[in-house]
């Protein structure tokens, strides 16, 4: 294992001076641990691409209200279940994106409401248009959105990039807000279980003996219980009159209780591997206090492993939240999350007529896959001295 001093000193080696290295082999000898990890990580192309995807998704979460163009809560019955509109990018030869206006008509045979594009009417998209009011980053009041149309968003005259749901709410805008909720719940959940995992796994690995046995047995018991029925039970017991925010935090805690065992296992394994390392023993011998030994000498050298394990634990959080909300036991409307959006896709008949209601499954799958690849890459990079 690395000498922890190197890990702390993450600044790269100065370009000139006695240590300056020219050939690649020499560079490896003088590089810091984080530098080596970065080089190892960079080689895993898929992981790098996944990192970009993950960052992109969190950007969406951050700027959700800017990317949305319609108020996600405003419903209009006369534009329910509108199909997505196709964007025409060029008007003649000029780049001027527009969509055809949509007319709702009754089908004379089935009496169902169907929507027909009306080629005579062109609704032009405008960039940085004015729309509903929001607070940019939660602070600055703003009205600008990435796209919009002239003259407000009334039904004859608006855009639905991904169609609308049963209540006539714009799916694209709702998806943006859902991304914010679903991704932050994952992040908060994983942070909570990280704290649990590090504390319990650390205790277990550092002290060993009876503490270790007890904690390991608890983890084993928790891992052999089918969790979903249990969490369903806990989630269903949340009082119905709780506010959106209270439910949000309660669900976060419930799903984080599910994820900490794996993290604790990783942390314990690292502690055990490191307890007998020379630098830890010498730290103890020169009289470092226990907390100092742990946090100054041990934690930095397995930080990277923890980051990797956390990344791999995140998809499970996102899936749990989506599954619970999908069943109607997690977040409840008016909260918007991917699971809440997918709730409308529960009925096959509805989905067969309006397949776009299944679209929120796409970001779930992409995020889960991206986090898995990213975690794989980080895990390989976490130990840059192997192989």
């Amino acid at each position, binding site marked *: 294992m690395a000498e922890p001093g190197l890990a702390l000193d993450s600044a790269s080696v100065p370009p000139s001076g006695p240590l300056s290295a020219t050939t690649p082999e020499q560079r490896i000898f003088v590089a810091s641990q984080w530098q080596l990890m970065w080089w190892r990580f960079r080689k895993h192309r898929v992981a790098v691409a996944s990192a970009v995807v993950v960052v992109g998704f969190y950007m969406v979460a951050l700027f959700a209200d800017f990317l949305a163009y319609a108020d996600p809560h405003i419903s209009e019955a006369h534009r329910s279940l509108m199909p997505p509109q196709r964007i025409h990018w060029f008007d003649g030869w000029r780049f001027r994106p527009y969509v055809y206006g949509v007319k709702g008509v009754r089908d004379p045979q089935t009496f169902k409401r169907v929507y027909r594009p009306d080629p005579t009417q062109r609704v032009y998209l405008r960039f940085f248009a004015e729309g509903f009011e929001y607070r940019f980053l939660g602070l600055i009041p703003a009205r600008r959105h990435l796209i919009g149309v002239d003259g407000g968003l009334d039904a004859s005259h608006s855009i639905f990039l991904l169609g609308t749901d049963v209540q006539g709410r714009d799916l694209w805008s709702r998806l943006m807000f859902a991304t914010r909720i679903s991704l932050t719940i994952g992040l908060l959940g994983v942070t909570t279980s990280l704290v649990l995992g590090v504390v319990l796994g650390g205790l277990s690995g550092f002290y060993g003996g009876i503490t270790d046995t007890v904690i390991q047995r608890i983890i084993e018991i928790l891992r052999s*219980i089918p*969790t979903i*029925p249990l969490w369903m*039970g806990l989630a269903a*017991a949340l009082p119905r009159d709780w506010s959106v925010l209270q439910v949000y935090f309660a669900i976060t805690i419930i799903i984080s209780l599910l994820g900490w065992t794996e993290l604790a296992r990783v942390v314990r394994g690292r502690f055990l591997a490191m307890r007998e390392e020379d630098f830890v023993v010498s730290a103890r011998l020169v009289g470092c206090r226990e907390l100092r030994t742990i946090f100054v000498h041990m934690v930095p050298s397995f930080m990277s492993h923890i980051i990797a394990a956390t990344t791999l634990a995140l998809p499970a959080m996102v899936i749990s939240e*989506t599954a619970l909300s999908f*069943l109607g036991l997690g977040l409840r409307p008016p909260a918007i999350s991917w699971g809440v959006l997918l709730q409308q896709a529960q009925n096959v*008949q509805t989905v067969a007529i309006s397949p776009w209601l299944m679209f929120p499954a796409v970001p779930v*799958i992409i995020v889960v*896959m991206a986090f898995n690849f990213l975690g794989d890459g980080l895990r390989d990079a976490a130990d840059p001295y192997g192989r």
Partner: protein
Amino acid sequence: MLAYIGRRALLAVFTVWAISVLSFVVIQLPPGDYVTSYIAQMASMGSVVTDEEAQNLRIQYGLGQPMYVQYLKWMKQVVQGNFGMSMEWRRPVTEVIGDRLWLTVVVSVAALILTWALALPIGIYSAVRQYSLGDYAATFVGFIGLAVPNFLLALVLLYLGFTLFNAHIGGLFSAEFLDAPWSAAKAWDFAKHLPIPAVILGLAGTAQQIRIMRANLLDELRKPYVVTARSKGLAESRVILKYPVRVALNPFASTIGYTLPYIVSGSIIVSIVLGLPTVGPLLLKALIAQDMFLAGTIVLLLGMMTVIGTLISDILLVWIDPRIRLEDT
């Protein structure tokens, strides 16, 4: 060997105890108690429960007593096979659950068997023909299997079945067999319906097992004893199947303990999406209606089932792996 099995059995007993406490928590969590919900239900049907009657009911069910007494009372009843009454169905919980528990077991076990049946040959193939087209295909399918939550997979298959074949692929029986007594024809109908849920449930596990099998076998194939076997002129299939696969199988077998709870968990949500007559949809309904005895019992029974399954797999593992058999003797 006996010491090992004894230790696992002891852990299983502890796990069952933990599950029973958690199930009890699920039953107790919602505000109010059995009697409040009973009164509300009677009121909705127009009849009134007097305070005195309510008081008597509370004494009868021991609701005024401390938590642990209530828990012990509940446990005593459970051990005697009395799981309480379902408030929604107004029938004993055991009667409401009926066949559903066994159907859950059958679906889960089918998924588990399928996981192994698929993962073993594909994993061997992927390792032996590393970086071949088939290996890449298996890796790709594996990643899809890991990334797509199984209830979404169920949803997509349901949609495809509905739009492409105009058929409802959910359920475990055709309409005409739903309430029919068991017969050869019904069993055959059941067998025809079983593969779809089993595939959906098994896919994620299969993906994981393929990766484990591939990695383990790759490690083994590089070892000198394989080269020796080959240089002695053993047929290639024999070289691979006789030794490296056997060694690679051990970690593979030991993961079954974690696969089973995962499959049982998944079966709940998938059953709800596909409308299978297992305990899944019943649990959801019970939770939404706050029919807590029914919900708690289902959580308890599912947990116990998983623990028993894991214990069986542990014993099987002892039988397969001599290292465990010879340990602590």
